[in-house]
């Protein structure tokens, strides 16, 4: 150290050192007095939760309304709301606090922290309800930005391509990862909020307390309950859109009507967002009193940690789990582990169940599905505690009808599904639109001009499930033109999407509903004409109701042309397709016979169970399929196809 510096900072020794000693001693004595005499708060009243003291509770108790598991006496405030529990100073205590703890952005510190729900919080980050991965990739596929509908994507992290911009400005609010900014009861217009989107339940008292807080700043003394009770109302908001399964389930179909047009009219329902629905027919499970969570499992909804592209891959249940043809595989209560066990402990309605049926698809336990003494399936409502006794499939389902091997239950038990045709989407750069993620105004708007909204039987098509072809129900995912506003390129797409319409009927559809129905065959609405010539040979032709589109020469609402085939981009799923020409012919061949031999049980056994054999013993009165439906012709086509 240089002498100049030393001189500058060090003065004469004796007095200064005496001064320092004086300051030290005075400061020490003053601090000690202050420390010992400072107003101590009553230590006994500093609550201890989860192994630590929590200052939050000193101010915020008493607070009622909690479920048992989330009682602040057990977990405090900080476990969910963060902030600083180790201070009594309001500003510091509230620093870093989160108002909506369920938001996925902070979930690893709140609901998903190591002491609470770490596994589920990890799973849900990767789940489809949080990411909308399938929605993003399908949209990008439709816009021609990627080559497959199975791609990466996250609705909260959208890029700048037209397809992602389209989602951001029109659709992206419906996903769990959307951050909810303020606490609110879950209603039809609620979006996002992570765990709280499904698990928060406001009592009347909690609603009133929230109102008072908003109006006058009164600290709420009634908290909404955070619990595993997920009601239909929680699902309704988001799932009343797109495939509209929530409204379908309750029997409502969206119309193009305006609210004032239905005033005083029964059988219509006005949603909070102004959309008008008309009553069609509810799902049988709804009629029987079942809620969404009575079928859907925690893994199917919140994910099992694996990455899935589409909802049908993530959902782990199937109709056959309850409506069984064969004995069910089960697991005992004592063999359950992890979250299944924890959920059972929370659901008192399920206390009486000792064995649990395993899902056929995932081989994992369905914690509300069990067997009675006779080995029959029993389903217990998770919220309601009601007992449901699912019916066994009818003989027509169990005894294989020729050609029906690939049919799913839904093929015959879906009387209607919402079908939107003719949509035009275009981009108007001069207008502004709301960012569905942040709520901010963005430049440029996507405008959708909708065509018909039909409630009609879905089309049947073929989809790959675990490498096996199954006949599944499809609706027009999009029959639309897109004008991205970038260049003069206009995109036309005719893609059907597989659907679980959630309009299940107890009674299966009549045979004619598929075998002589253009909609079911993917031809769109129209009429078949069966003409008989002089030698009793019949030819079948189809007259579509809607006009053909110039882009592909197919009727506006159709998926495929009559006795034609369609390849390339036909569906929003890889491997899905409409019936090909041979399949259409086979279906219609049966349809011709059905005109005289209706599909009752007697005819099912006599004719349709072994249809090729029946064709070999036609009576003289029978119409002989000719032309394109001639049996020999179909066989030739099949041989040509199978080398």
């Amino acid at each position, binding site marked *: 150290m240089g002498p100049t510096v030393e001189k500058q900072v060090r003065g004469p020794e004796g007095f200064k050192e005496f001064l*320092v000693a004086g300051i030290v001693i005075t400061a020490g004595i003053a601090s000690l007095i202050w420390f010992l005499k400072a107003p101590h708060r009553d230590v006994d009243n500093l609550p201890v939760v989860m192994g630590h003291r929590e200052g939050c509770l000193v101010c915020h108790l008493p607070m009622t309304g909690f479920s048992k598991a989330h009682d602040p006496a057990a977990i405090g405030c900080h476990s969910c709301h963060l902030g600083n529990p180790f201070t009594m100073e309001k500003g510091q205590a509230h620093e870093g606090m989160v108002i909506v703890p369920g938001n996925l952005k902070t979930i690893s510190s709140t609901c998903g922290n190591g002491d609470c729900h770490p596994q589920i919080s990890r799973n849900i980050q990767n789940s489809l309800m949080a990411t909308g991965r399938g929605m993003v990739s399908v949209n990008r596929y439709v816009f021609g930005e990627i080559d497959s509908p199975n791609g990466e994507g996250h609705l909260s992290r959208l890029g700048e391509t037209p397809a992602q911009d389209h989602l951001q400005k029109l659709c992206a609010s419906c996903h769990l990862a959307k951050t909810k900014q303020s606490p609110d009861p879950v209603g039809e217009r609620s979006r996002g909020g992570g765990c709280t989107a499904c698990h928060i339940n406001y009592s009347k008292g909690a609603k009133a307390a929230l109102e008072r807080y908003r109006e006058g700043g009164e600290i709420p003394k009634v908290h909404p309950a955070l619990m595993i009770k997920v009601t239909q109302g929680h699902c309704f908001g988001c799932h009343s859109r797109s495939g509209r399964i929530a409204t379908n389930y309750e029997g409502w179909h969206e119309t193009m009507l305006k609210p004032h047009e239905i005033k005083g009219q029964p059988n219509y329902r006005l949603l909070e967002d102004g959309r008008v629905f008309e009553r069609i027919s509810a799902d049988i499970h709804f009629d029987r009193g079942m809620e969404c969570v009575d079928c859907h499992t925690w893994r199917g909804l919140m994910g099992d940690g694996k990455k899935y592209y589409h909802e049908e891959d993530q959902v782990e249940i199937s109709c056959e789990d309850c409506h069984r043809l064969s004995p069910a595989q089960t697991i005992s209560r004592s063999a359950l582990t992890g979250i299944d066990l924890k959920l059972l402990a929370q659901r008192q309605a399920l206390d009486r169940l000792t064995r649990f049926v395993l899902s056929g698809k995932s081989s994992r336990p369905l914690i509300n599905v069990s067997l009675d003494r006779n080995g029959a399936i029993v389903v217990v409502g998770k919220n309601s505690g009601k007992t449901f006794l699912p019916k066994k499939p009818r003989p027509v389902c169990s005894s294989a009808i020729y050609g029906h091997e690939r049919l799913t239950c839904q093929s015959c038990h879906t009387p209607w599904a919402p079908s939107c045709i003719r949509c035009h989407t275009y981009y108007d750069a001069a207008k502004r639109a709301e960012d569905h993620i942040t709520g901010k105004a963005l430049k440029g708007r996507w405008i959708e001009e909708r065509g018909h909204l039909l409630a009609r039987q879905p089309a049947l098509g073929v989809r790959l499930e675990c490498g096996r072809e199954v006949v599944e129900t499809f609706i027009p995912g999009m029959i639309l033109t897109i004008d991205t506003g970038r260049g003069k390129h206009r995109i036309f797409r005719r893609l059907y999407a597989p659907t679980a319409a959630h309009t299940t009927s107890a009674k299966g559809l009549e045979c004619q509903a598929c075998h002589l129905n253009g909609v079911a065959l993917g031809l769109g609405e129209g009429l078949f004409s069966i003409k008989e010539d002089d030698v009793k040979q019949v030819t079948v032709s189809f007259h579509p109701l809607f006009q053909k589109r110039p882009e592909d020469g197919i009727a506006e609402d159709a998926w495929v042309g009559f006795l034609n085939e369609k390849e390339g981009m036909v569906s929003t799923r890889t491997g899905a397709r409409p019936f090909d020409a041979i399949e259409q012919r086979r279906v219609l061949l049966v349809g011709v016979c059905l005109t005289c031999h209706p599909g009752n049980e007697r005819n099912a056994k006599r004719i349709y169970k072994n249809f090729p054999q029946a064709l070999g013993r036609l009576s003289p009165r029978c119409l002989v399929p000719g032309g394109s439906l001639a049996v020999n012709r179909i066989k030739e086509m099949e041989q040509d196809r199978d080398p």
Partner: protein
Amino acid sequence: MKTLSEQFASHMRRFFELWSRVLPMPGFLISACMFVAAGSGILLAFAYDINRPFDSLQVLILSNPAGTFLRGIHYWSAQFFFVLVVIHLIDQLSKDGERELSAGQWARLSTMVPVTLFLMISGYLLKGDRSAILARQVIEGLLGTLPMGDTFRFLVLGSGEGLQFVYSHHISTATLIVFMLILEHSRGRWPEWLSFIWILGISMLISALKMPGLSHEGAGTLIKGPWFFLGLQQLLHWISEPLWLVVGGAICFGMLCSIPLIPAPSPKYVKVALAVCLVLYMGLCLTTYAFRGPDWEWALPWKSR
């Protein structure tokens, strides 16, 4: 043409000239820091209960604002102490200050670095909260990699999970060593009065603005150690054999102690090597502080909590 190390030394000298116009020199401030930290520590000891360390601190900060303030002064003066020791070392090395001391004196003073580090870490462990428990596990693991690791572990941390040994070392062993080294180096002088006022004033000011926190069991998946520990935390995340880190630290310390013994011009290279290690380590601490998010994943600070 000046070499890089000469340029660095020149910049350092310029920096400390500017420093001296505003603040007392680091050596005086270090001495003041030690007195402030020790004084506030004595007062805190009245409230600290070795049998329930975490709870006694919680009770202190929730029930006694004065105690909370004192704890802040203790914490911040200790942080300044550590930073100033490093700065003083850089200052001395940049102007070849080691030449003014005997090799033995230099070696004893170099011991100040690990002892100060121990004081800081032991203070952190004495919180007894979740992050302290995890930090203790890390230190136990590191000591365990040494030959006779169990003996070292016992001597430093004691047996079981109790904090008696750590507390004893913190308030007596390490503190005494530091005091002795300071007294030897300052030739028995008391802290310079201006330095004392600077340190006490700044510690009080920052304590009023930002209190040192505690973390508990439900504190989420992101537990970061004290700021000077973060580089080590990150290296432990990358390196499968912790012994290398202990060896690396020992080599750096050995290099520092032996500088006066190394014939010219090699000390220059040793200093450059130490400076590079310090810069890299601090860079790692900073990166880890800013960019490690929940589950120790990389995350942008403005996108993660």
